[in-house]
């Protein structure tokens, strides 16, 4: 488990990191925790000539709230930071809970929200939550930055909308409308503790008990995390009762193109699990929506 030799840089500012990234181009990889990248480097499946470690950029590690109630989380905030943040616990408790379910303590101490999203592991937990919570991803390049809507972010297996010269700097979580409940439910892979299938649901219910907004993110089932739009459509505008949940959850796998079929679960079982965990996530989200 010895990676090929590489150069290592640990810039302390985003500006320096961007300069290094431009300088080394395709030869460089950004290190944002390392629990995904380093193992594949040790197996020599990834052989970057240069690593730019973002871990020393203190500007990228923060959690704050704006006047409109939205949260901003620096890309290098660890799962541990998120799990223990009073702000996250108060505003989006499901996110704090999920951070405590990722991998193990070591992963939580080193793994970062930005690293997880930029790596786009098909079985990562946070991509499902990002979709349900409608994350906006703030990036920087040497020229300027942009904001990418999460719905346009995950492109394919381990592939995102990020450009080679771009660094994900911040995650913006819009304030949840009143009456919104969020839940993330998964079947953990017993070896890696990644999600065999995980479903995040954010459900908003009006005073009249009608579902006004539903965002469902599904991870683990296909090459990327996806929104279960068919499920969302069934929920919206309805009094969500057991029958509606059942009907909606049944469609949770419908938006997954190409179900994963591997050592850990067959495609058929994964499709079934999308239904099971969609129902559980919706139920719990509803119970928290009051």
């Amino acid at each position, binding site marked *: *488990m*010895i990676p*090929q*030799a590489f150069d290592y840089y640990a810039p302390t500012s985003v500006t320096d990191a961007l300069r290094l990234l431009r300088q080394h181009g395709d030869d460089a990889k950004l290190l944002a925790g390392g629990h995904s990248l380093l*193992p594949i480097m*040790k*197996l*020599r499946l990834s052989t970057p000539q240069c690593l730019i470690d973002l871990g020393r950029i203190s500007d990228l590690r923060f959690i704050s709230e704006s006047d409109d109630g939205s949260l901003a989380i620096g890309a290098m905030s660890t799962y541990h930071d998120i799990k223990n943040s009073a702000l996250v616990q108060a505003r989006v408790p499901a996110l704090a809970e999920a951070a405590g379910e990722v991998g193990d303590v070591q992963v939580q101490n080193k793994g970062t929200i930005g690293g997880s999203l930029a790596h786009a592991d098909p079985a990562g937990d946070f991509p499902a939550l990002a979709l349900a919570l409608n994350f906006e991803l703030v990036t920087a390049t040497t020229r300027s930055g942009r904001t990418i809507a999460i719905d346009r972010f995950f492109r394919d297996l381990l592939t995102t909308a990020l450009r080679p010269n771009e660094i994900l700097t911040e995650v913006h979580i819009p304030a949840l409308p009143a009456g919104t409940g969020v839940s993330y439910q998964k*079947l953990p*892979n*017993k*070896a*890696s503790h990644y999600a065999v299938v995980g479903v995040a649901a954010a459900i908003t219910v009006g005073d009249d008990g009608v579902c006004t907004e539903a965002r469902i993110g599904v991870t683990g089932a296909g090459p990327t995390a996806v929104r279960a739009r068919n499920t969302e459509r069934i929920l919206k505008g309805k009094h969500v009762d057991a029958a509606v949940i059942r009907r909606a959850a049944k469609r949770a796998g419908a938006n997954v193109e190409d179900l994963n079929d591997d*050592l*850990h*679960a*067959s495609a058929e*079982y994964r499709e*079934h*699990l999308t239904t*099971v965990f969609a129902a559980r996530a919706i139920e719990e989200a509803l119970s928290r929506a009051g």
Partner: protein
Amino acid sequence: MIAGQVSKLIGSRVKRKEDPRLITGEGKYTDDVILPGMAFFAVLRSPYAHARINSIDTAAAAHPDVLGVMTGAEINDRCAEPFPLFAILEGMQYPERWPMAATKANYVGEPIAAVAASSRAAARDALDLIEVDYDPLPVVTDMETAADADTPVIFEEMGSNLCYEATDQAGDPDRAFAEADGVVSARLEQPRLIPNPMEPRAAVAEYERSTGNATLWVTTQNPHIERMVAAKMLGMPENKLRVIAIDVGGGFGCKINTYSESIIAIALAEHIGRPVKWAEDRTEHFVATSHGRGQAQYVEAAYKKDGTLLGMKLKIYADLGAYAQVISHVIPTLTPSLSPGVYGIRDIGWTTIGVFTNKIPYDAYRGAGRPEAAYIIERVMDLIADATGKDPVAVRRKNFIPDDAFPYETPTGMIYDSADYNAALDKALDIAGYDDLRAEQKAARKDGKLMGIGVTVTTEVCGFGPAAAMGGLGGFESATVRVDPMGKVTVLTGASPHGQGEETSFAQIVADDLGVPFEDVEIIHGDTSIVARGVGTFGSRTLVVGGTAILKANEQIKDKATRIATALLENKIEDTLDPQLVTLEDGLFSIQDMPDQYVTWAEVGSEAYDGQLLPEDEQPGLEAVSFWEPPGLTFPFSAHIAVIEIDQDTGEVSLKRYVSVDDCGTVINPTLVEGQIHGGLAQGIGQALLEQAVWDDEGQLVSGSLMDYAMPFAQEFPMFELDRTVTPSPVNPLGAKGIGEMATISATPTVANAVIDALSHLGVTHVDIPMTAERIWRVLQNHGSRRRGGRS
């Protein structure tokens, strides 16, 4: 000291004296060894499960950091002999095995070449520069068809992939089947498992060209066997090879074998004239270190309506992998031998078929042949319970070997030393609250929930020796006990532990037996230059055989010390004394009826080396050597109960309770025993629910890392509920039985039975292990809520 005697330290929870050293980083593991001028080596391994090696080009690896490259042909040429095998079975055929594949690779991971370099990274980098031209060959992965006529043959000279097919019987199984009210049958899978000790393997070798002396530091459970094998292969006399394994971080059987890397290390050290180190990483471990289990078992069992098991017929396929090693081929034969379990069945017929496949060799893994046996008989008991509509507890009791039948010879020739199965079972049922659990299960089923209760009563064979049971590896253990001039005690033991805690338990035995403080006893092991001979730690033998060897050496020490003490006391009282009147109690040698007149171990020790008062016929020194071989084997036993629930939506099994009542005879240290049980349960439960090595048709290990090979996490377990019964063994003076493997052996069928019990009202009678969520989900898909047969 004898079993049952009141003592101070034996039976008490003395803290492990090795722990402060190990948890503060002062342990001396192989990878901790740093020698002046030491180089590192890496091993190039076959990426193919079966391939002809046309050529190897190492020219590109010529880099300033590279100190030497040896190919398979070069390493093998350096050897005088191939790997030796022990306990060759009648009619068995097997291929020669050399440290490396020179002309043909037979499994993924087989060593092809080795590179020594100035750093680990440079050695690893150089591997990528070696060019090997392979011709892939057809691959054999399925054990049940491996010996078929139309299956490609791995070793052409053998004509087939069959290692052996052994058919035998005890009693008259055909008659038993003719007399039966019914027959249950099943095909049971024992997946291959990948042992994962905390410490992967490593080797460091130093070779002195001027003398031809070599030292090998290596991760082994048995340094003396390692020395014997490595010396033989390298054509060295044993007294020119020193093997050191001070601290070894677990083994579970996978560190019994002498591996190619030990031979490569010595050969490379000789070749480059510098010491070398190799340490595998976890991923390499998966394809470089032997696996365990791996059987397909066909069982038929004849029973009477009252639940009596009359007879069994077994057909067992064992996947040996590409080669037999040490005594790996014998392990599957333990399965039929132990298949009667704790029951009085007399009529058994069996065929054991060992085959070669294009997989890494299989070898001992915690239990080695006995978990496979316990699984058969404990599944059979539940199948009979299902078929007769009786409670699994009642069926077991009906079949127990009676409590007054010990020592008991099984139809397969095992002599069970002592047992009381009813006592252990009673205790387990009581702790579990069995009747309440059954009531709870009934209620749960009414609510549509799936709850299961698994019960097993099992035994196993351990305390290995005598020599006749060991096939040429030796059945003894050695001990040297030395009292120094300060009265402190040093013990050298040949039973080199690798995590079991014998530095503590052996010191407890010595402290009690000699009456010296626990702190005054040092236990030395794991160095063949210090401990002259030994066999090692496997098969739960260390305490039983090694502990007794120490007691035997103590006897000699006490005799001589008493004679010396007598002389000292005579001098004190200025009179002659009958040595019979001098007794050793609480560490003081005193004269009967004159308790004020005594001498201490320090006085005796001092006198022994530089005294002026030694009796005329007494030579100086206070040291004794003992070799002890047990007259027979020991058979610990256990009664286990597991309670599980199944998530009907996902098929996930969760373990709710686990009751483990184990009987290992005299307990020296309850904490160490419970540690063995906790760890053993974790491994056995892991086997039932999670673990399996998965291969594709090309012979590639798909579950090739801990990201893909699932082992249990502590958080997945409830607190285990432990208790014990104590039935001393008559075959050793400690009364001890081994406990290293018992819990692993019992846990797998206990959990499997619990899961199947949860599904029995749906008509399910068997599900294979590992009982993964998807596998259970599929069973639920197939059986739905249809209710037929089975226990209600």
